[in-house]
């Protein structure tokens, strides 16, 4: 191809030459030839042709000939040619201002000759001539930028960019122009475009980094510099920018209090700065930056708390503090070296002196071990003076001197001098305030702080100063806390933070998370202050983290030994008391006792530590000694202030109760002077003891107690105790006096209807009373709000969950499974599972909720005939619940819960057909140590399992076992009775019935109900043994016992009808009508079958009208998917009968009688009766 191309060009050349010979005066031919020759690099020959062409027609190709000529002459490099080139190009540009090639060449030429004004003029001319002369705008923009005419440059460059939108250089220039104009965001955008077009634009990267730093977005700045360094690893400005960006980032972290984060960033920064000092070691600013970075590092390097666990090692602690100090010191010293280098390079810069001064002062404060002579000038002061000598009118240097000097007079002078130079210097006011405070001139101090604060509210020191000041006035502790918090939030200085924690202790904010964060940060910067650790311990204690509190106190004690001071002894005592208390609370009585004995040895045992002493003695089982200590304490009560006196008396009374028993406590209380009862806490203790006392010996003091309780909480608590007392006092040996208790608590609740404490107790008592309808009331009297679950004796959700399980009535409202017959309308039961799930969502760790949820789900499963998916969940839930270690704990409550879970598991296995698992679970349950009355149920379940297995021997054995164990739960006996009759077990009827009656006797209100149920069971059994007439006897008895109970009435009615069908006396028919009518009235939701039977009975008695109305009633009682064939058949009868009637709105008319029969046959095709009816209809 190239070969043929060349040949083509050759041909073209020849053709042109020939045509020129034909027409030598045609300029365009000559121009064409010139271009061809130019392209073949025969420039001289080309120039000849161009000259001729230009002569013939100067305007050929818009001055194209001149362009080529100009380029030709410009390439020849000599003065004369240059002039010629200039002229040609000028001509070319004037003929075609859009011609960028000649324009650029012209400008380059002018540039070479250094004639900038001409260059600008040429560009301007071209740009004015044509708006498309983009080269001119570009040139002009660069030149204007060069001449620092930035706003004009922006204009030109923007225009140029329209022509060359993808030129990174233009964008970069535009960015620079914007940057110089101070339009930083616009500059960033332009630089960003340049970088987008060409990733390696170092200038754009570095400058945008600088802008980011200036705008305070250090992170973005750092990224830009890092990118720049990738392409140009030796760029000093990129290094400088990166390290100052990192420094900025670190300062941001430090201001948040993230010292460790800051330190990591600074380590990186110092590495980068160090590299840049190698690249350009003679720039003082780089050394200053390095110094800045290291000084910041020294000021933020945190003391690392080793993961020391709970073990405590004095040596390691001291070492860690020493190494921390060492690191800080080394960094500060290196910083001072760097500052010195900077000073050495640029000794005229005053701030270098003050930098060194500040660093020296910091180093001095770090290792104050080396004693300084206070009379001589210290290096820091000298350097500060050095700065002042250079710039005496710089107010900040005066402030610097004021801070660094050790002489108060000089300090004051320097600060005031600073203020004279600049009266609105907030820092100077603040330090002046600090100075005055130190000198004890509080009035002046406050004024100075006020001044500083009003000038610059974002300065931390005045806030801290104000708080320290108001701390002395007891009234305004909260105010002080607030302003100190402000200071800490502005600047996380360890001293401020410690102050904050101290104020929090006084004002009761110790458990606030701000204080926690502050003291943790203070620990990182002031690990050598004992009060820092002490306060940290107090904060941990406020958050109930006693073990780490104890560790902190030990650290505090360790730090105090390293400190030399006057009042270490009293501090030591306070810390030891704190330590003993924390240990005691953490359950480490032995160590607490040791600490107390230590105090005792030194004679420092005060009221608080004595209490701890007594308590730990008691915990360790040294009851006598504990009692003695407590008694001693209680005896010197009169010398104490009220709060601790009350505490001492309470402690003593409680010990007395636990150690010596009720009687001696009561005697002791009776002997006490009346004013003791003024403490509400003590009053409640007395009430509690009173509640336990069967003989009411504390009655005389009762009235004085009641008068001392003020707040509603205390009073409800008192009512709570009184109710408990009623339970104890009215109960028998085996059973508490529930009914009395319920009555009592009802009255109290009337007074305090909002008290959840009383409400829940009422619910609990109602449940515990085991009366028939109380379970419904129990669930109704407890309100589960959306509030987080609150503490108390029994929680509302527990009452609700237990109540729902305890309710014997079916709670399910879905008629697919069963019909609710409960007349108490416990409508909230279906919601219980949802409520429990809500509780579980709030407290997923709460095993109690889980347990109740399992029980409720089992109940639901029972009601819904054990649906598969529910059984699967339940099996999993139960297996996991059983594996929980909670149920291996001692205590009958846990054993009982485990027992229940095992029974649930067993029952579910029984229904799923896993008989072996079922028997195993039930056997496990029967092994648990529980009262026989409970174990009965395990064996009952075993009976069921063996029965369904067909294992008669074992069944009989378990049955006997049940009889032996016996229970006081009626339902158990009823179930056993069923099993007994169903499997024709060796009759123990007498024992069973006797035991049943025995346990019903205890119930007052519900014994009738239970007897009715027993009769029902007997009736049902008689029915199944075809003994209908005795069944009727039992059932009528049941009905008379239970009152209006629709299910019993239905049973009785149905039995009566059966009897009449069998040809017994016709009075049974009217009995049936009576029972069924009652059943119809009694049921809440219309029960199916009742109306149909009633219709039949009425029909048999001859009342056709009643037959019809009742059949009408029957239809809606069935849910659509469950309608039986007989119902359709009955409807067919109805439709047939009332064909003549005009009332067509009734249901039977929606289909023809034939249709009804067809539906009946469709539902149950095996019944001959329907076919016959169909046949009749068809005929």
């Amino acid at each position: 191809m190239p070969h043929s191309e060349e040949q083509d060009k050759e041909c073209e050349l020849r053709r042109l030459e020939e045509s020129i010979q034909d027409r030598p005066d045609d300029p365009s031919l000559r121009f064409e030839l010139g271009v061809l020759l130019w392209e073949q690099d025969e420039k001289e020959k080309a120039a000849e042709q161009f000259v001729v062409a230009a002569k013939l027609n100067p305007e050929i190709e818009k001055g194209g000939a001149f362009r080529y000529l100009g380029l030709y002459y410009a390439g020849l490099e000599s003065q004369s040619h240059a002039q010629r080139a200039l002229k040609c190009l000028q001509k070319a540009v004037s003929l075609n201002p859009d011609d960028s090639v000649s324009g650029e060449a012209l400008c380059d030429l002018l540039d070479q000759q250094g004639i900038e004004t001409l260059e600008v003029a040429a560009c301007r001319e071209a740009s004015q001539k044509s708006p498309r002369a983009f080269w001119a705008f570009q040139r002009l923009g660069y030149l204007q930028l060069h001449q620092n005419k930035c706003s004009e440059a922006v204009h030109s460059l923007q225009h140029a960019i329209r022509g060359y939108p993808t030129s990174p250089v233009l964008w970069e220039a535009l960015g620079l122009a914007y940057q110089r104009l101070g339009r930083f965001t616009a500059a960033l955008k332009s630089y960003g475009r340049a970088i987008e077009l060409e990733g390696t634009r170092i200038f754009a990267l570095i400058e945008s980094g600088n802008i980011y730093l200036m705008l305070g977005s250090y992170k973005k700045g750092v990224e830009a510099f890092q990118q720049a360094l990738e392409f140009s690893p030796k760029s000093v400005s990129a290094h400088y920018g990166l390290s100052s960006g990192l420094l900025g980032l670190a300062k941001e972290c430090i201001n948040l209090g993230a010292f460790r984060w800051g330190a990591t960033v600074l380590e990186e920064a110092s590495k980068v700065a160090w590299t840049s000092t190698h690249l350009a070691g003679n720039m003082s600013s780089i050394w200053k930056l390095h110094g800045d970075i290291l000084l910041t590092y020294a000021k933020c390097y945190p003391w690392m708390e080793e993961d020391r666990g709970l073990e405590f090692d004095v040596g390691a602690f001291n070492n860690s503090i020493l190494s921390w100090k060492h690191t800080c010191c080394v960094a500060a010293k290196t910083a001072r070296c760097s500052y010195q280098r900077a000073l050495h390079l640029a000794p005229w810069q005053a701030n270098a002196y003050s930098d060194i001064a500040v660093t020296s002062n910091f180093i001095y404060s770090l290792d104050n071990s080396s004693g300084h002579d206070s009379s001589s000038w210290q290096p820091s002061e000298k350097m500060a003076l050095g700065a002042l000598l250079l710039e005496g009118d710089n107010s900040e240097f005066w402030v610097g001197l004021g801070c660094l000097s050790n002489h108060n007079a000089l300090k004051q002078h320097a600060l005031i001098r600073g203020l004279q130079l600049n009266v609105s210097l907030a820092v100077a006011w603040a330090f002046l305030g600090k100075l005055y405070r130190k000198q004890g001139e509080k009035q002046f101090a406050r004024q100075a702080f006020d001044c500083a604060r009003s000038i610059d509210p974002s300065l931390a020191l005045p806030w801290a100063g104000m708080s320290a000041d108001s701390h002395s006035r007891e009234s305004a502790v909260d105010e002080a806390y607030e302003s100190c918090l402000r200071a800490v939030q502005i600047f996380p200085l360890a001293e401020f933070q410690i102050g904050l924690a101290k104020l929090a202790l006084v004002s009761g904010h110790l458990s606030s998370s701000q204080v926690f964060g502050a003291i943790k940060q203070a620990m990182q910067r002031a690990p050598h202050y004992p009060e820092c650790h002490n306060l940290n311990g107090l904060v941990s204690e406020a958050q109930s983290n006693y073990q780490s509190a104890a560790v902190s106190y030990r650290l505090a004690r360790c730090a105090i030994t390293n400190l030399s001071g006057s009042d270490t002894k009293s501090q030591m005592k306070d810390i030891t008391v704190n330590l003993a208390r924390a240990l005691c609370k953490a359950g480490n009585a032995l160590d607490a006792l040791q600490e107390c004995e230590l105090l005792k040895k030194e004679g420092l045992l005060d009221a608080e530590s004595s209490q701890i002493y007594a308590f730990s003695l008691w915990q360790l089982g040294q009851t006598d000694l504990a009692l003695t200590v407590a008694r001693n304490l209680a005896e010197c009560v009169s010398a104490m202030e009220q709060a601790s006196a009350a505490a001492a008396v309470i402690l003593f009374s409680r010990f007395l109760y636990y150690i010596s028993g009720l009687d001696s406590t009561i005697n002791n209380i009776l002997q006490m002077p009346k004013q003791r009862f003024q403490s509400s806490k003590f009053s409640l203790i007395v009430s509690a003891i009173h509640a336990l006392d069967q003989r009411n010996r504390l009655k005389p003091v009762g009235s004085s107690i009641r008068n001392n309780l003020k707040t509603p909480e205390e009073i409800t608590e008192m009512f709570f105790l009184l109710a408990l007392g009623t339970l104890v006092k009215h109960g028998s040996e085996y059973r508490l006096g529930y009914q009395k208790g319920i009555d009592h608590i009802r009255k109290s609740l009337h007074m305090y209807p909002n008290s959840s404490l009383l409400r829940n107790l009422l619910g609990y008592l109602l449940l515990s009373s085991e009366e028939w309808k109380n379970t419904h009331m129990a669930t109704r009297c407890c309100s589960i709000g959306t509030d987080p679950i609150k503490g108390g004796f029994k929680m509302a959700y527990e009452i609700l969950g237990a109540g729902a399980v305890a309710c014997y009535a079916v709670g399910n409202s879905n008629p697919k499974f069963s019909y609710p017959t409960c007349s108490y309308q416990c409508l909230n039961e279906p919601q219980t599972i949802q409520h429990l799930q809500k509780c579980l969502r709030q407290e997923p760790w709460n095993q109690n909720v889980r347990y109740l949820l399992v029980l409720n789900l089992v109940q639901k499963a029972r009601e819904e005939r054990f649906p598969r998916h529910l059984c699967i969940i339940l099996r999993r839930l139960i297996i996991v619940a059983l594996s929980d270690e909670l149920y291996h704990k001692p205590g009958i409550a846990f054993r009982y819960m485990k027992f229940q879970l095992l029974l649930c598991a067993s029952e579910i296995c029984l229904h799923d057909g896993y008989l072996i698992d079922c028997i195993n679970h039930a056997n496990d349950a029967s092994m648990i140590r529980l009262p026989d009355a409970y174990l009965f149920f395990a064996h009952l379940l075993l009976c069921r399992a063996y029965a369904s297995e067909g294992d008669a021997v074992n069944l009989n054995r378990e049955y006997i076992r049940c009889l032996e164990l016996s229970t006081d739960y009626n339902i158990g006996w009823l179930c056993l009775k069923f099993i007994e009759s169903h499997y024709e077990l060796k009759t123990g009827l007498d024992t069973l019935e006797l035991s049943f009656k025995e346990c019903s006797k205890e119930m007052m209100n519900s014994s009738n109900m239970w007897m009715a149920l027993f009769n029902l069971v007997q009736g049902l059994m008689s029915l199944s043994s075809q003994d209908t007439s005795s069944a009727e006897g039992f059932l009528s008895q049941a009905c008379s016992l239970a009152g209006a109970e629709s299910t019993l009435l239905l049973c009785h009615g149905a039995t009566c009808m059966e009897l009449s069908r069998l040809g017994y006396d016709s009075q049974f028919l009217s009995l049936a009508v009576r029972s069924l009518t009652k059943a119809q009235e009694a049921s809440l939701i219309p029960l199916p079958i009742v109306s149909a039977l009633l219709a039949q009975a009425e029909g048999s008695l001859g009342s056709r009208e009643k037959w019809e109305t009742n059949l009408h009633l029957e239809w809606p009682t069935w849910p659509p998917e469950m309608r039986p064939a007989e119902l359709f058949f009955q409807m067919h009868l109805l439709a047939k009968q009332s064909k003549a009637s005009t009332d067509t709105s009734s249901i039977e008319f929606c289909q023809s009688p034939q249709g009804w029969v067809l539906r009946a046959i469709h539902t149950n095709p095996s019944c001959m009766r329907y076919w016959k009816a169909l046949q009749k209809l068809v005929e």
Partner: protein
Amino acid sequence: MKLAGLKSIDDAHDESVWAITWVPATEARPALLLTGSLDETVRLWQPDELVNRGKMTGHCLGVASVAAHPLGFIAASASLDSFVRIFDVDSNTTIASFEAPPSEVWQLRFNPQGTMLAAAGGGSASVKVWDTSTWNLVATLSIPRPEGTKPADKSSSKKFVLSVAWSPDGRRIACGSMDGTVSVFDTDRGKFLHHLEGHCMPVRSLVFSPVEPRLLFTGSDDQHVHMYDAEGKTQVGSMSGHNGWVLSVDASTDGAALATGSSDRTVKLWDIGMKAAVQTMSNHNDQVWGVAFRPGGMPGRLASVSDDKSISLYDYS
């Protein structure tokens, strides 16, 4: 910055709504909202009109957590019995399902790279991690038992893990426990690093700043929102203002704002720079269990769900 209510659906579910997440947009559709509720369903909503796009069943107890894969095709949901279902968002076909012992799966989160699914392991005191290609359990990051406690009394030292969060680079996992501690793990090595202390009540929700992998935000029952330097184990900020438990926190994509939902029935918007609440939305009338910022570009969207069965959508600008 501010929030403006866009749309609210009052009876979005039949029962309390407990979980919410955004399913990122795919080529075929915009980003969707996924909610889980006590009514045992997971539902899909299309903003801004909150059109119901589907109802997914398959759980037998309330749905406590939902999570969406960063690519937007698959999502996961977990119910109170710790049954986890992974499904295709658009077709609702089950991709995988696994069962942990009940109480051992709580909050779910995919890592930003989409290769792992982490679950707060509840009573197992650990974070469980599944591989999203094979759905095998690949790691169990256990919180070490504090020293000095005997191995015998397990229950006292066990920390119930409620919440989990991935750092934006996927290298760290943080989890919050019922005793208020936050634990940080190294995911590459599967190692426990340290605890972050400061809360004294359950930490129900935490989230890393999307722009700064070191910065972690936590919300706790002690009514505070804390900021931590998760690497340097330092608390760097504490924000208070709620009058109830802080149940949910989420950070906006630009890293400048934080949203919290609380049992005081409000949603608050916080300016992270100022460390202060800038707006309080009180349109819910029960506790707010979940808040979620839409990931990705503008315009910003925030959604919240509550026990009052409703979903609310806000414009964040």
